[in-house]
Each structure stands twice: as C-alpha cells, then as structure tokens.
C-alpha cells in the first residue's frame, strides 16, 4: 500500500469517526453514558392519585435498570414535570422537557384528554412519546409514528372487553350499556358495538352526561328493555348512581363496572347503596390478577423497597401504581432493541416491534405497524362489597383500527 493510499484510508477513517460522533452528538438527549427521558404526570391537584405512584413505579423500573448497568452503557436520566392532569399545564410541561431539558423521548401522561392536547406538538417536533397510564385513544387512533400508549387499556378495548365478558361469561344476548356522551363514551361504544355484533348480541345503549345527577330516565328505559347484563362504562359518580338506581328499580341481573369507575372500591360501595346493591356486581380489572395477589406481589414488594417512607403512608401505593411498570418496561426494551447507536428513528422502530408479557397487565404489551395501543384485555372480578373472586380467564376486545 503506497503512502497516498494510507493517507486516504486514515482520512476516510477519521471522517467516518467524526461523522459517527457528529450523529451521536446531534441526537438530542443522548450522550455516550446517558439517555435523558422526560417524564410527566399529575403530581399535585385533585387528580394526583392518577399519576403520582404510576410515575413512581416507572421511575423505580428505570432505577432498577440503572443499577443493573443501564442500557448499552447508558444510564437513564429522568427529568420530571407536574402536568396537574390539565391540558394547558401538560402542554407546557412537554414543551419545557423538549425545548429546555432537551430530552430524547417522553414517558408521561396519566389523563387522556390532557395528553391528547400535546399530540400535535409531539408529532410536529418528532419526539417519541410513550404514555404512562392514560388510555389516550384520541392520540392513538389513527396511529402516527411518534405516540404509543394505552398500557392500562384503551377506551376502545375497555368497551369491547366488557361486552365480550357479558356475552361470553353470561351468554347474554340482550346487553344494556351505559356510557358517557363525550369522546370517552364514543370510543368505548365504538368497540362495544363491534364486539356485540361479533357475538350476535343486542346492545341497548344509554349515553349520559358525566354531570348527570338523576339517572332515573336512562335506567327506566334500560329496565324496560329487560336486559340480561348491565354494563356500566361511566366514571365513578354516575356508576354509583346507576348501581343504586338498578337496585331501586328491582334489577337483579349481573352488573359489569368498567375500570374507569373502580379507583376507590370502598367509596363506590358506600355511594352505590351498600353491600345489598353489590350482590351481583363484577368489576373490570386490567392487571394480570387480583390486586395484591401472589402473582403481582413482586410489584408491591419492589415499590416498598424503592419508596419505604412513602409505602408506610396510608393509601399507598395508590391503586393505579402498577400501571407505570409496563410503560417503563416498553421504554427500556425499545432502548435495548434500538442498539448502541441510539437515534429516535431506531427507538421508534423498536417500539413498533414490541411484543412481550409484562407480568403486570391482563394481556400482552403488543404494538404493530398499525397498532399504537398496547393492551387490549381485562380480567373480571366478582365483588360483593367486601371480598373479591376472580372469574377465570381474560377477555379481550377484537376491535382494531382500520
């Protein structure tokens, strides 16, 4: 090899290295030993129960990965903002994380309406967003390249799963279905209709305002239709009113209550008319097993170990705490799969190919070229106001975005 060839090879090598370094240096939020993830959730205000411990769970997963050496030699650095479950605050938090903290990707959002408000900004700036526990259907359907979510369950899947349970477990052909007359309600009804049609069941729908104070009219209409199962897809307050009114009207059939209303079961029983009204009530749960069961014990043990002081407080961990884990698992798995030369494009491609059992949720965490909603299944628990008894199996929605 002549001197000229050696020089050319050296120059080429130096240029290639420089090019590689430049590419690395240009990737926002990534250094050879760190990757910066922007996290946000409601950490204060009336909706803090939806996000505080969910974010804590995600962070404890990142801490675990960091203790084990990180991913491709990089430690995960979490930058946290409070979104107060409010669209304005959430968008401001996202902008701050992207523009000031220069994060590589976002991992946050516990409130659907608020997180959907940030979707335009995220897509425009091409920042990967992996939601925490928000269902966020409005940002997931139609799918885009940057937003992944519904780790607990999407509203579509919640509606489809509840109808699947009513049709399969009770063999019901006349199903009464109460949802809200807002975007949430439209989403879950969409999949519920699909599932009912697939199962050959009739769906008698009453869409009510979330602020309704008197549910007599919709319940009398449903009672007149003589349903075999009553499915309630509303928030906690209307759900309690409906359970109470069902008892007053002499309805004794099974009642299926969606996960939207089950944050505080003790309060739901008190509000819904006491144990008498809960003789035939089934609640939807998106975890793999009963909360606190042996199968999920590791999640609660991990929390107690990570946050000993917090865990000793009453009401901790909050009900939705485990939902933060599959979201964080998805982030770390995608970082792993993206390889050492980390770019947002590689991370997004890796997210799209995820398919794993989190050990936490009722169904697998599965994305695809046209699917951005991670989790489609739920389990059902017979709840009499005091004890819980799991119905065997899990029930998944068949609805897919087309």
């Amino acid at each position: 090899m002549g001197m000229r060839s050696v020089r050319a090879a050296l120059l080429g090598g130096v240029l290639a290295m420089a090019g590689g370094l430049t590419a690395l240096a240009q990737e926002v939020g990534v250094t050879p030993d760190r990757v910066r993830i922007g996290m946000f959730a409601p950490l204060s205000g009336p909706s803090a129960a939806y996000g505080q411990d969910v974010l804590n769970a995600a962070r404890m997963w990142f801490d675990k990965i960091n203790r084990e050496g990180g991913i491709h030699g990089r430690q995960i650095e979490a930058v946290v903002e409070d979104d107060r479950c409010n669209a304005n605050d959430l968008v401001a938090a996202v902008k701050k994380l992207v523009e000031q903290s220069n994060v590589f990707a976002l991992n946050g959002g516990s409130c659907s309406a608020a997180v959907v408000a940030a979707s335009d900004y995220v897509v425009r700036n091409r920042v990967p967003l992996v939601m925490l526990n928000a269902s966020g259907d409005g940002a997931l359907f139609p799918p885009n390249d940057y937003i992944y979510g519904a780790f607990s369950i999407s509203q579509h899947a919640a509606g489809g799963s509840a109808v699947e349970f009513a049709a399969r477990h009770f063999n019901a052909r006349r199903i009464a279905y109460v949802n809200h007359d807002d975007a949430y309600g439209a989403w879950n009804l969409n999949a519920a209709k699909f599932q009912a049609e697939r199962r050959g069941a009739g769906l008698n729908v009453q869409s009510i305002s979330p602020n309704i104070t008197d549910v007599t009219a919709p319940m009398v209409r449903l009672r007149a239709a003589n349903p075999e199962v009553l499915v309630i897809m509303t928030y906690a307050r209307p759900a309690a009113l409906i359970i109470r009114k069902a008892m007053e009207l002499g309805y004794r059939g099974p009642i299926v209550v969606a996960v939207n209303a089950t944050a505080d079961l003790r309060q739901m029983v008190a509000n819904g008319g006491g144990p008498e009204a809960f003789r035939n009530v089934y609640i939807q749960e998106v975890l793999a097993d009963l909360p606190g069961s042996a199968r999920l014990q590791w999640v609660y043990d991990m929390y107690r170990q990570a946050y000993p002081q917090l865990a000793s407080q009453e009401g901790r961990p909050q009900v939705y705490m485990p939902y933060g884990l599959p979201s964080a698992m998805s982030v770390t798995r995608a970082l792993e799969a993206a390889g050492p030369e980390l770019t947002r494009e590689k991370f997004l491609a890796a997210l799209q190919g995820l398919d794993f059992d989190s050990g936490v949720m009722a169904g697998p965490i599965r994305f695809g070229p046209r699917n951005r909603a991670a989790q489609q299944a739920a389990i059902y628990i017979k709840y009499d106001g005091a004890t819980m008894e799991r119905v065997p199996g899990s029930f998944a929605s068949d609805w897919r975005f087309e």
Partner: protein
Amino acid sequence: MDSEVLFLFLQQGIASGIVSGSVYALLALAIVMIFKTSEVPNFAQGEVFMVAAYAALFLIVFYGLPMWVVIPAALLFTVAGMMLFEAGILRRVKKALGEPVNLVIATLGLSFLLRGLVRQTGLGDTPRSFPSLVSTDPVQIGQAMLTRLDLAIVGTAVAVMAAVFLLFNFTRAGRAMRALGMNPKAAALVGIDIRRTHAFVWGLSGLVSAISALLIAPKILMTPEMGHVAILAFAAAIVGGFNSLPGAVLGGFIIGIAENLVGLFVSASAIVVTPFLAIMAVLVLRPQGLLGGRPQMRKV
C-alpha cells in the same frame, strides 16, 4: 313503543320529575327572593347549596355528630354565612360603586371561594354519599317506582314552599321584604329597616338553599361541583318569571318533569339541553316568564 311502555314512561317521568322539580323549585325560590329584593342574580347560589351539604358532611365525618345536631348546625352555618356575605361584602361593594355588575361579580367571586374552601377540607373531589334520614326502600305509585326518600323530599319541599308563602304574605317581615322589592326608598320612608331586611332575605335564601341541599344530597352524591344544579334552578326561575315566587316553584316542577320526560321519550343525552330549550321557548314566547308580571318601564 307499545302503550304499556308509553304509560310506564309517562307515569315515571311525571313522578320522578316532581321529585327533582321540587328541589329545583326550592333553589329557584332562593334565587328569586334575592333578585326581587336586591336585583342581584346570585351566581353563588349553587355553591351555597353545596357548602351547606359539605358543612353537614364535615360534622359527620370529622366529629361524628348525630344528625339531630348536624342538620340544625348546617342550616345555621349557611344562614349566618349568607348574612355575613351580604353585610360584609355586598353592602361595601354597593357603597363603593353601586353598579349591579359589581354585585354580580362579587357573587361569582363567592362561588369560586366556596368551591376552593371545600376542596381544602380534606373531603376532596371523591364523590361522597350523604346519609339519608329516610330509607330508600322502593314505593310503587301506579306503575312509577319511587323511594320513601323521594316522597320525603317532595313532602318537605312542599312544606318549605308553604312556609315561605305564609311568611311573605302574612307576616310583618314578609311585608317588609315585599315593600323592599317594590320600592326600597319608599320602604325606608315608611320605617322599614332596609339593612336588616336585606340581611334577613339573604339569610332566608341561605336557609332554603341549605334545606334543598340536605334533601337532595343523599340522592345525587356529593362533589364540590354539585352546585351546578343551580343552573337548573336559574332555568326554573326564568321559565316561571324571575320576579315571581310562585313562578319559581312552577318553573322548578316544569323543568324537573320536562327533563325526565325528554330522557324517557327522546334520549338520555337530550336531558342536559332540555332546560335550555325551555328557557329559549319562554324567552321567545313570554319573556317575563310564565307567572312574571308585565315588563316594567323604569325612570332613569
């Protein structure tokens, strides 16, 4: 729809409408009595209603007091609060710059303040049930299904309406309030204590609101947003006539029954628009309300 279902819906709609309408009527009465004497639409009426229920719940949850103590305490607290607001805030606002709009803004300020205060009590935003003094066992009237609590609500509400009617028509305080509503200057000239009468009206309005809150709280579940029921009371007052106490009562029952019939015969999602349709119809066809007096011209 077959005739059996039609009659069931009709009976249930009217029966349930009378129950909810009686609460709207009470709250509308509270709004109209203030408007008639102060010419201020009290936009904090819903929050006063909410605070009365939360005051009672607070005493039950944190102090474990029995209902025979809780109910009078909550009523007294609300009456005192309303009188204090009238004397401490409204009177000063009126003295500083007596524009009606300033008085209205003061009531809006009160509504925000009350909601904020309730959120600080530790009872938070979780929907809570208020213990009922009467059982919720079902009672069948014709084909309609009500509860004993529903019957107690209607009975108590009608008794309160009758008491307010007697107070306004057959007592000295009632005559003073009517005189104040007709012409404050002339009322003062004939020796009516205007300040005391204003305070009395605001206190009475608080009492009626508190009674309606304690009646309906076991039925609707409590949140700091429960005061939005007052929107329906405003609708009732507009439909009945904003300067007519009997009109407020009539409007309350019309709104209650219309809501239920629309929910049964049209759609549950149409319930929320019913009061506004009723307001539109009345404003177009009879702007002064069904029992409102003729529109008056006032010398300025």
